């Protein structure tokens, strides 16, 4: 399966299992979503469970919070992560605080799905990676899959989770892994182990990282599209890197991170999002605080630049093989 099919399958399975699950969002109903993630679901489950919404992100999340307070498990979609901002008050002030401020009387078990990330010539408003806005919010879990297998397993776990979860889906890798070499022909998930998606129900636990590749020369912390870019660059350079796909940013799998950095003594953090106050800053700080005496070099970050996401200069912006390669060279120079 590709990632869209895996997401569609997860939604289908969960809707079958739990009659309280409803899907709402722009174009998700009859049409099946602009990326086809909800294709066929309205036909199968009816318009009362899968329905189109007005173009109003505040309303989509606000209504979902109210539905969750009633006892449903809504899975709202925000068409692009770039358009999640009108719903921030509902997500940050409401969904994230519901359990805390009511001492558990009301909860917000909603799963917000939203395509994110660049690499598709999406320009400023179809490429952003706003995960750090949410990792900074107490009460929200942030999940980012890097393979179809994890997309299905993590989405199922997110829907079953009793806390609000935001699942950012890297749209660059919906149809195939992307290694950062933009001038090479694109690949599909066929033949990639992450594209082998079992039928039926399974879950990938939240808060657990995945070791993509074991190694001893350095630890790479990444998620989403950047997993595949990192894998390709390090393989090409012949570096015995340990690559960790964080999968859940909050709550973070700190044990796996610590264990790896203590083993390798070096750490490289990679994300597409802009650098300043990005999630990488949190990762670097945690590694510095908790693995300081094991570190043999400064922790490096490879990120997007601190600019809005450009259109024509996308491949100058994107943290691709050259930027990663330089950072690896610096880390390994001694």
């Amino acid at each position, binding site marked *: 399966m590709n990632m869209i099919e895996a997401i569609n399958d997860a939604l289908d399975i969960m809707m079958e299992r739990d009659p309280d699950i409803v899907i709402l969002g722009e174009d998700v109903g009859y049409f099946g979503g602009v990326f086809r993630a909800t294709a066929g679901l309205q036909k199968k489950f009816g318009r009362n469970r899968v329905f189109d919404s007005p173009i109003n992100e505040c*309303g989509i999340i606000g209504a979902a919070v*109210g*539905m969750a*307070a009633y006892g449903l498990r809504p899975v709202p979609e925000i068409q692009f992560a770039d358009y999640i901002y009108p719903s921030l008050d509902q997500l940050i002030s409401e969904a994230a605080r*519901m359990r805390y*401020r009511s001492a558990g009387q009301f*909860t917000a078990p909603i799963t917000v799905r939203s395509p994110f990330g660049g690499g598709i010539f999406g320009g400023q408003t179809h490429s952003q990676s706003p995960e750090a806005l949410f990792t900074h919010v107490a009460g929200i879990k942030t999940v980012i899959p890097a393979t179809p297998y994890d997309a299905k397993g993590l989405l199922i776990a997110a829907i079953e989770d009793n806390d609000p979860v935001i699942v950012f889906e890297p749209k660059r890798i919906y149809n195939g892994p992307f290694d950062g070499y933009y001038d090479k022909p694109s690949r599909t998930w066929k033949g990639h182990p992450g594209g082998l998606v079992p039928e039926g129900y399974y879950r990938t636990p939240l808060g657990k990282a995945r070791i993509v590749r074991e190694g001893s020369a350095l630890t790479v912390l990444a998620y989403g599209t950047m997993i595949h870019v990192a894998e390709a660059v390090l393989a090409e350079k012949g570096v015995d890197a340990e690559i960790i796909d964080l999968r859940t940013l909050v*709550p973070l799998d700190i044990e796996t991170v610590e264990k790896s950095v203590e083993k390798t003594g070096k750490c490289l953090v990679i994300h597409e999002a802009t650098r300043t106050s990005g999630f990488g800053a949190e990762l670097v700080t945690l590694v510095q605080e908790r693995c300081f005496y094991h570190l043999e070099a400064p922790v490096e970050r490879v990120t997007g630049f601190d600019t809005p996401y450009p259109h024509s200069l996308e491949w100058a912006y994107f943290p691709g093989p050259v930027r990663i390669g330089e950072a690896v060279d610096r880390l390994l120079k001694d």
Partner: protein
Amino acid sequence: MAENTARKGGNLPPLELYVPEPRYRPGDLVDYSHLPVPPAGQLSRPDENCPASDTWPMTTDMIRVLDEEDQAVGPWNPGLDPETLRRMLRNMALTRAFDDRMYRGQRQGKTSFYMKCTGEEAISVAHAQALAQDDMVFPTYRQQGVLISRGYPLVEMVNQIYSNRGDALKGRQLPIMYSSRDYGFFTISGNLATQFPQAVGWAMASAIKGDTRIASAFVGEGSSAEGDFHAAMTFAAVYNAPVVLNVVNNQWAISSFSGFAGAERTTFAARAVGYGIAGLRVDGNDALAVYAASQWAVDRARANQGPTLIEHFTYRAEGHSTSDDPSAYRSAQEREEWPLGDPIMRLKKHLIALGEWSEEQQDAMDRELVEHVKAATKEAEKNGVLGHGLHHPFHTMFEDVFEELPWHLEEQAAQAIRERQIKWPEWKEEGDV
């Protein structure tokens, strides 16, 4: 290329920005003769199942039931029995007595903050009377009358206000941000208008499940300017959600008069029709009119005929909160000159006119309510007042952020408890060794 008609030297008048200004500022003499107060009983009452557009006359006029002779008149007279009227009167008086006591409690330093609803008691009490007990209310911070009407224990309210060990919300919330799932009272948020689309979502869920319960939401006229208001109205209309959307127009949003929410151009009720939602504008100081309009909207929602927006026209008689001094921005005369009077006085006089109540009974009830509130306060004080110990244990600060504590919150909880042992070495909690 088109010529720039606004260029210097053109003969068009210069554009002017209009900034609304209230009629009366501190020291001004107040005259409300500009404000139309239609006679009671004159507006017709359409069928609850009418098209939204049929309610247009009800959105620009004002539904009033109690007339100058304290009689209930016209097609909107709900014909309530005296016992129900006395219950509403009592709940309104209890709400006021509670407000007065808690205001004093804040001044005495027993808590940090309080907000009264003086002058607006009819709205929450009569509206609650029209709802079923298990309909979910999405209130603002000025609908304490709903909790009181539903019989929520006063001691629980005071515990919350004092943030003490008995506080059901574990001292996490600012005073008056109550929450009670059992009493159908949704957790109050400090962020204005967010509960409006949530109520619509709750109502949609009830409809999805084929339930018979409806939702009711409140905002002030000030926060009807928030984007959430538009989201809620759009969603409510699109999905024909079984919800009653209430705008309490008390003329003031802290220091800003209702003109800054658009009141100079149209009524708040009139906005409903543009969304295809039924609208009603009601004298918010007339408990019978509030009840009648609420009942109309509740019946409409319950019959799958969709949402209603009710504008409750009233006056915020006191300051915005204990942190506010209204004499700094409005005339002190406004309250006494308010042409719609006081809701408690009006209902009392109506009951007396019916021969179902007397001044003596009112005085006795008021005395009893003062004692009732005082007793609840004393009871709650046994659980502590703000800043005087008896708070919830430190670890509870970290609970309920998530269903389970992740490692980083466990670490931070351990830190807070270490700090506690240094800052307050005499402090003992369950589990301390």
